[in-house]
């Protein structure tokens, strides 16, 4: 299976007595837009953080773009882009300064950096905002800037942790079309979300509850597995089951 971009095997993470992620196993194919669904506390963020090398797994493991996250977390970091739930860029720097900083951190210099920046600015439509402080951007623009910084080094795998929280519907729509653009060009995208319309736009989904995988497949298949007519039904059933 050379076309597996993310290969997760029995991945487990405990925080003291709490098991945040338990025995998670799944594969994500190259170029796939893969959604991770589940209520708060179901282990989505912990999973993404382990895949990014930000948290060490307690047991089990994963490879991302062919690299083992437990043994070579720093090499994984050269092959992935990551957007955290919370805006993680510098609000006291301008859009251009944030992009230049991350360009430098990813080893882009001089003309190469300028070319790559111009590409991304055109792709994300950031042209008019370049000299605004990040703090003054709306949620939608912040999210685009964060995506830009995560894409500077053209990573084969992209991790997006609730990228559209607090973003208006129009911005969400254009963000998703950008995601599909990237996937068409071969980027693998793992995204967590609360929004059902976003979940519907994923190629495949995994639903998590209390750290376990409870359903896996296309949006329609997942809805069926959990026992709802629609994905939203499935999600509500899941949440009620969780709260019991």
């Amino acid at each position, binding site marked *: 299976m050379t076309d597996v971009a993310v290969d997760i095997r029995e991945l487990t993470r405990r*925080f003291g007595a709490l098991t945040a992620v338990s025995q998670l196993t799944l594969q994500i194919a190259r170029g796939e837009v893969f959604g991770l669904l589940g209520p708060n506390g179901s282990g989505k963020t912990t999973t993404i*953080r382990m895949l*990014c*090398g*930000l*948290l*060490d797994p307690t047991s089990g493991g994963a490879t991302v773009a062919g690299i083992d996250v437990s043994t070579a*977390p*720093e090499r994984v*970091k*050269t092959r*992935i882009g*990551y957007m*955290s739930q*919370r*805006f*993680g*860029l*510098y*609000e*006291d*720097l301008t859009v251009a*300064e944030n992009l*230049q*900083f*991350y*360009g*430098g*951190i*990813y*080893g882009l210099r001089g003309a190469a950096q300028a070319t790559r920046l111009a590409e991304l600015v055109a792709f994300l439509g950031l042209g008019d905002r370049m000299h605004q402080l990040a703090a003054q951007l709306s949620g939608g623009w912040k999210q685009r800037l*964060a995506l830009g*910084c995560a894409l500077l080094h053209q990573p084969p795998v992209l991790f997006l942790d609730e990228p559209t929280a607090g973003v208006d519907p129009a911005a969400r729509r254009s963000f998703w079309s950008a995601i599909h653009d990237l996937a068409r060009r071969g980027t693998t995208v793992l995204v967590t979300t609360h929004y059902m319309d976003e979940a519907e736009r994923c190629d495949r989904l995994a639903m998590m509850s209390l750290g376990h995988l409870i359903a896996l497949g296309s949006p329609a298949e997942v809805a069926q597995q959990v026992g709802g007519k629609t994905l939203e039904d499935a999600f509500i059933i899941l949440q009620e089951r969780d709260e019991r």
Partner: protein
Amino acid sequence: MMTRLWPMVRKEFLQMRRDRLTLGLMFGVPVAQLLMFGFAIQTDVRHIPTVVVDESRTPASRDIIAALENTGSFRIVAHVDGRPALDAAFARGDAQAAIVIPNDYSRNVGRGSTATIQVIVDASDPLSSQSALAAAAGLGQARNLTILAAAAGRTSLPIDVRIRPRYNPGLRSPNYIVPGLVGLVLTMTMVLITAMAIVRERERGTLEQLIVTPITKTELMLGKIAPYIGVGLFQMTAVLILGRFVFDVPLVGSLWLLYGVSLVFIVVSLSLGLYISALVQTQQQAIQLSFFFMLPSILLSGFMFPRQAMPEFFQWLGLLLPITPFLEVLRGILLKGVGLEALWPQTLLLAGFAVGLITLAVRRFHKTLD
């Protein structure tokens, strides 16, 4: 190697430039501290408000009162009648010293028997009473000698003790305080700024984004402290220039050596700040921990209070503070003009602190979230 250091340093400078308040503090603090400590802090207490009870009221009694006032330690604020009035002046705080001359003073001086005068000092603050006590005792002794010598028919005293206060002939406080202030200002700003630096990124959520990049932790930490090395050198230069021109503090020794050792001390302070920031989770904790370190740096380092006067345990404790050897270096170079031949133990100790603290900070800091 270290290819990501420059973007990191550049980013820190950009942020520093936009943070007006911190910028103001970084450059305002040394100036404010210098003026405060330089003008306000005088360890030699002079001109203590003094009341006089002169029951003798003779030329001889007026003469001894004038002599006491001329030592500069006493400033006569009132003549009062009797003990109750004196006690009241002490109680109200109007006077911190009193000179009492009994009515038989002049008679006893004339007769050649022992004449008594009394100098009473409010010693609730031992530091401020010291110079008054010393001045009174000294004056008494000098008077005795002159009278005895005259009685023995000598025109000169048998022994003449000549005192030469070396390195600070005027016994001026600023000469002692200002060099120390270089150490104190650097400790206060350098430790706190770097202690905040990484914690702030952690709190704002920017650290998470930064540590999913291939930046190495050495690049990250060096990038954090490098810009502040420049700030530290600027601060010490400001203190030295103001000290020279406002307080006339001499600058005797080698400037190269001074800046060289100061660079080591700046690195020590920055590393300590980094270590603190790797220990704590919030900016609040970083501030508290920095202050926990700050107070002993003022009290135990010899900045104001002589270490020789401390119990041995506290002298050793003081040596655990990097500022302690640095103060000795500062005063050695600035006031005595000595070089490495005399200051190598302190310099070596500082270098040891630098290596130790950098190692601690790098080992403590991890590029993960837990």
